[in-house]
């Protein structure tokens, strides 16, 4: 059996990443034997995008962090600190904050290592995020990692219901994007392997990112297309796989179901947000009419009470707006994220099928080579015979590689799905707690307002 290679710190590697698959949750490292190096020019690999010398990583002294607006930060789903450090004893837990681009001309990204307390603050453009995603997708999807999907380019995304007019420059749009970017990065560094990826580290720590690095694969659109195609309906694939492992078949079905459920939930929440905003508008309108009544009313005490009524309704309107905010940033975005994640999950399942298919093709080709060799044995062409024998050796290797790749991706996917299911529970729990806090807050504010209004109403003589 191959020797167990120690886990290498790949961050200082200057020639692109080694394909070390390091998932450190388990005691017994299932992947200790799985370490392998992939040469830069093997045909199966997309050009590695992070070529070029890795710049020296110098920690930047923490700059002033531009704090996100109060309301949004209430809903930022940062890592639950205690939980993770207890569980993994991992020294790489990170807290990510992405701040408003308005003031610094680019999204400020701050990453804080919760263990070492090292902090980096950098500026990134939206296209940088897309670039990061495309690199990660090209590196890891084909070995079965669920790479967090890139933040949505389009405003509307999956929603069919337009929740009010949105233009590209509006504060609301910018906030949505900022929040999406933060969630994207947080999800990325939550992945144990991605956290150590040099492109991710470079993204978080380098003052300047290298510009256009190489080839067509960098095109965000290109990679997105690849990912989307892979994630498209499975029935479009012509590969008919003999599934020997029922687990995969069952899981795929579950993810199909989950996809449908999540989309339905997302639609429900969108409807909720929409009506909540409508309520805010109507409440404000009523408040105005009550104020006019208060102004026109002759009876002094009644007039005063009506004016107070108008003020209470204005405050309640404010609460409705805040609650709509919570509805959206907590639930709508969570559900949207998960629908997109499911697409990525489906993508890796499809990659597995492609890997299987490649293996099968290699086996077929090997067989043909063998048949050809047999024929040549009677043809008395020693050169060609030798070539045929060499080719057989080559394809035997490829068949073995194909089988290993297939087993590898299958193992990875099992691991990834387990991680996904655990993370899902955590994510939802965090959101629900934050949402409940907003609900409690709203009711307590209402209590204050009603308690203040009651004596006003009673004072009407």
């Amino acid at each position: 059996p191959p020797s167990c290679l120690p886990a290498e710190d790949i961050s200082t590697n200057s020639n692109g990443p080694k394909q070390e698959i390091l998932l450190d949750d388990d005691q017994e490292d299932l992947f200790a034997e799985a370490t392998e190096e992939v040469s830069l020019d093997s045909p199966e690999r997309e050009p590695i995008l992070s070529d070029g010398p890795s710049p020296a990583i110098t920690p930047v002294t923490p700059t002033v962090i531009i704090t996100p607006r109060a309301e949004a930060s209430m809903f930022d789903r940062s890592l639950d600190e205690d939980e993770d450090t207890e569980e993994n004893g991992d020294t790489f837990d990170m807290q990510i904050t992405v701040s408003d681009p308005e003031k610094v001309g680019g999204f400020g990204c701050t990453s804080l290592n919760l263990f070492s307390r090292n902090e980096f603050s950098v500026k990134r453009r939206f296209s940088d995020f897309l670039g990061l995603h495309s690199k990660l997708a090209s590196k890891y999807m084909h070995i079965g990692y669920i790479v967090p999907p890139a933040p949505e380019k389009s405003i509307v995304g999956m929603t069919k219901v337009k929740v009010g007019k949105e233009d590209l420059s509006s504060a609301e749009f910018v906030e949505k994007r900022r929040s999406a970017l933060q969630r994207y990065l947080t999800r990325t560094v939550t992945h144990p392997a991605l956290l150590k990826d040099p492109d991710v580290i470079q993204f978080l720590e380098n003052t300047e990112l290298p510009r256009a690095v190489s080839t067509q694969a960098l095109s965000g659109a290109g990679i997105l297309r690849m990912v989307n195609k892979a994630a498209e309906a499975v029935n479009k694939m012509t590969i008919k796989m003999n599934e020997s492992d029922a687990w995969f078949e069952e899981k795929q079905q579950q993810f199909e179901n989950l996809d449908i459920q999540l989309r339905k939930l997302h639609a429900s929440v969108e409807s909720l947000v929409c009506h909540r905003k409508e309520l805010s508008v109507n409440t404000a309108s009523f408040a105005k009419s009550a104020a006019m009544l208060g102004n026109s009313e002759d009876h002094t005490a009644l007039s005063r009470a009506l004016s107070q009524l108008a003020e209470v309704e204005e405050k309640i309107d404010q609460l409705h707006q805040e609650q709509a905010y919570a509805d959206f940033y907590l639930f709508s975005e969570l559900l949207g994220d998960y629908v997109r994640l499911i697409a990525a999950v489906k993508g890796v399942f499809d990659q597995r099928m492609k890997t299987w298919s490649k293996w099968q093709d290699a086996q077929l080709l090997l067989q043909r080579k063998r048949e050809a060799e047999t024929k040549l044995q009677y043809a008395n062409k020693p050169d060609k015979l030798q070539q045929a024998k060499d080719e057989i050796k080559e394809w035997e290797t490829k068949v073995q590689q194909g089988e290993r790749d297939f087993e590898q991706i299958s193992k990875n996917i099992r691991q990834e799905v387990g991680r996904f299911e655990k993370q899902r529970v955590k994510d939802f729990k965090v959101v629900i707690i934050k949402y409940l806090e907003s609900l409690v807050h709203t009711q307590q504010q209402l209590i204050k307002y009603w308690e203040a209004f009651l004596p006003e109403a009673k004072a009407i003589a």
Partner: protein
Amino acid sequence: MDASNKESALNVNASSIKISDVSQDGDMLTFAITSQNLSGSGGVCVFRTYEDFIWLQQSLFSQEDVPELQGVIFPPLPDKPLPSHSHTQAKVLKQLGFLSLGDKWQIYCKALELYLQQVAAHTLLSKNKELYNFLSSSESPGKQRSKKGIFNRLSQVMEEMRKEGHKDVDEFFQSERDKTTNLSVLFKVATEKFLEVVLTKQKLALACGHFSTSLHLCVNQENADAVAFSKICLKLSDIIETMKRNFEKVSDNDMSTLGLGLELESRYQEAKREMLFRRTCRLVELDNANKNVDRAKPNKKAHMEEVQKATQKEFNLISSVAKQEIVHYHRTRVQVLRDFLIDWCEKQLSTAQESSTLFSQYLEACKGLAV
């Protein structure tokens, strides 16, 4: 008027009048009305339809030889209760407003009840023997009369254009007319806007219901993590269900207190406006009568003077009744609005306290959820 009947009518304890029940047969509603004597002895229960109420209203209007009635602010009778089917819902809502909402016509019945109480408490109107018959006779009241009497809507609309702006001889009344014109519109608008608010809350309740149901369907027992996720979804489903009930309670509170209060005030302002208009019409008549006297040929002069005197007398009578009515109205309406506002505030406060407790309990439970 029969002396004994007159007595009986006044014997009704106005505040004891209740609409204790309503039953629906197809599109027809029947109201059970209970009332008691002032002496407290003997209660009576009768059954009436909306048509009976119209008959009562018309009887009140068309009392002959009681000219002072024209100065009365008639308690407004709610519009006809049309049961709403899906295709008529918008129409019913427009016509009845808040009165069309709520379970089993609760709010409508309350409005109807208040109407009867107001009529029975009115010094002039309560003398009408038809009221006594309406409240206590086991027989149905008479059929609808033909639409005569001082309350002829159609002609009024046409006259309104010409006469509404007619300048008043009395500052008190001119001021009242101006204020009422302004205030009745404002109350109408406020009522409509509040109705929109309440309807939106009902939409939110429905949306929560859908969300909650969808969550309930996300159950999967495959493995430990799937079970944990299912638990969370069910928990969230409960929370959203609680949100739904909160919206329903809040909008119920809105409808039955402030909504009803604004609706009634709107209609009462309208009734006051109508009264003032009637008086204005009499004023126009009086001005004409005065002119006729001046212009009259000698042989007609005496006659015109008589007409003028009679018109003046009637006008003075109406004005004095009107003034009393207005003073009484100002006092009562403030009380009524006060009561509705207090009731509204207390109910919403109580609901908020309940919800706050419930959500806090959920919060504690979720924090403790093993993950």
